[in-house]
């Protein structure tokens, strides 16, 4: 006997994105609709399968009738909404945001294990960052190699908090957290103890796979060798929400 899934009563709305008439479920966000329809919006903290924090601001879009920019990941679609995903202003802001990320910590691609497989590097190319216009902070951060399988290099971290969310929401271990403010802000394991000494870490490696840069990597990888696989996330997230 076939299992009949109960259809939740979700309405469908129509909206325009970059001049295209689109329909979407009313519980979807702008970025989800854009991803489904292959409309490119840069993003860093957003990830299909994780909760939304709206932290990186790279997915900002213009919505007609709004006098401010809205984060596409944190804005639900609405009937008759008119969205612009690319404009000179948006491109200028996105480029500046990516440049600030590069200026903040050490992102020297040529010697990074994630060279060629890095989302920040890819964002630089797509947002037109051919150089960084602001002065580099040149502040050194720690590298924690105490875990037997993985390593965290805070110099490469962009504080997207994907590791914090995947560990809490998908793995259920909640090993990762955020500590400190401003330039002291960094991800920590188990109340800022060394990762290798963590009681809660299950060594599942999900944090490593979702990390967009070379901040969380496997031990023993050399330049350009750290290729990440994020296919597991939407599958696990859907299974969890179906439970």
């Amino acid at each position, binding site marked *: 006997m076939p299992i009949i899934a109960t259809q939740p009563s979700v309405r469908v709305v129509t909206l325009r994105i970059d001049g295209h008439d689109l329909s979407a479920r009313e519980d979807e966000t702008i970025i989800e609709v854009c991803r489904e329809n292959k409309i490119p919006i840069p993003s860093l903290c957003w990830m299909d399968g994780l909760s939304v924090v709206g932290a990186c601001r790279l997915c900002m879009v213009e919505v007609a009738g709004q006098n401010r920019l809205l984060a596409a990941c944190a804005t639900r679609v609405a009937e008759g909404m008119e969205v612009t995903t690319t404009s000179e202003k948006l491109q200028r802001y996105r480029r500046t945001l990516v440049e600030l990320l590069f200026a903040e910590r050490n992102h020297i691609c040529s010697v990074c294990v994630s060279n060629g497989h890095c989302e920040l590097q890819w964002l630089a190319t797509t947002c037109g960052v051919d150089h960084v216009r602001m002065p580099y902070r040149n*502040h050194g951060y720690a590298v924690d190699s105490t875990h037997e399988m993985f390593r965290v290099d805070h110099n490469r971290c962009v504080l997207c908090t994907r590791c914090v969310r995947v560990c809490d929401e998908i793995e259920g271990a909640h090993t990762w957290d955020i500590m400190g403010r401003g330039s002291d802000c960094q991800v920590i394991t188990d109340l800022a103890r060394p990762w290798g000494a963590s009681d809660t870490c299950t060594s599942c490696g999900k944090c490593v796979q979702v990390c967009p840069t070379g901040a969380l990597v496997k031990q023993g990888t050399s330049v350009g060798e750290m290729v990440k696989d994020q296919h597991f996330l939407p599958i696990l997230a859907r299974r969890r929400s179906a439970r």
Partner: protein
Amino acid sequence: MTTHSNASTSSASQPQPAAGAETSTDDKIQVATIWLDGCSGCHMSFLDMDERLVDLVQKIDIVYSPFVDTKTLPEQVDVGIIEGSISNEEDLHKAKRFRKHCKLLISLGDCAVNGNIPAMRNPFKLESVYERAYLENVNVHQQIPSVGVPALLKTVLPVHAVVTIDVFVPGCPPNADAIHAVLSELIAGRTPQPLSHTRFGA
């Protein structure tokens, strides 16, 4: 941005410098290159253009470069190409000299564009950098050199932090195709789009 067509026409009216002038003709674009704090990999990559160099020298003249013997930078050059970051007083001086004498300046490679490997000393104090290099890791004749060598700057800077740059070509090194594309666009009088051929760390 200065496009190449007008750059090369106006160069014809410029007084030709003594050194290197005997080989250059008026309709050729004069190119100077320099190697600051880098590994010379970008210059190697330039040579990797291989047989395309033969066509290229029909259109450009390399008037000053590690590639050629000329020791003086001509008064007026159309295109200056800088490899390497600004790490010491001499780099700073050379970059400023290039800006003064080149109509269009290209930052070639990650060291010039973002500091790259040389800039990895930046989180450390300059004294500890000197100590590490000349005292800690040296067994015999430990000394911090001070005579005949330029003083290091406190922090390594990308070239655009000290002079205005017109074209940025990232990459470690930018591959020969990227360099060829950029030069071809400039020769054709168009604005090159280096990011469609190369990226940081490429």
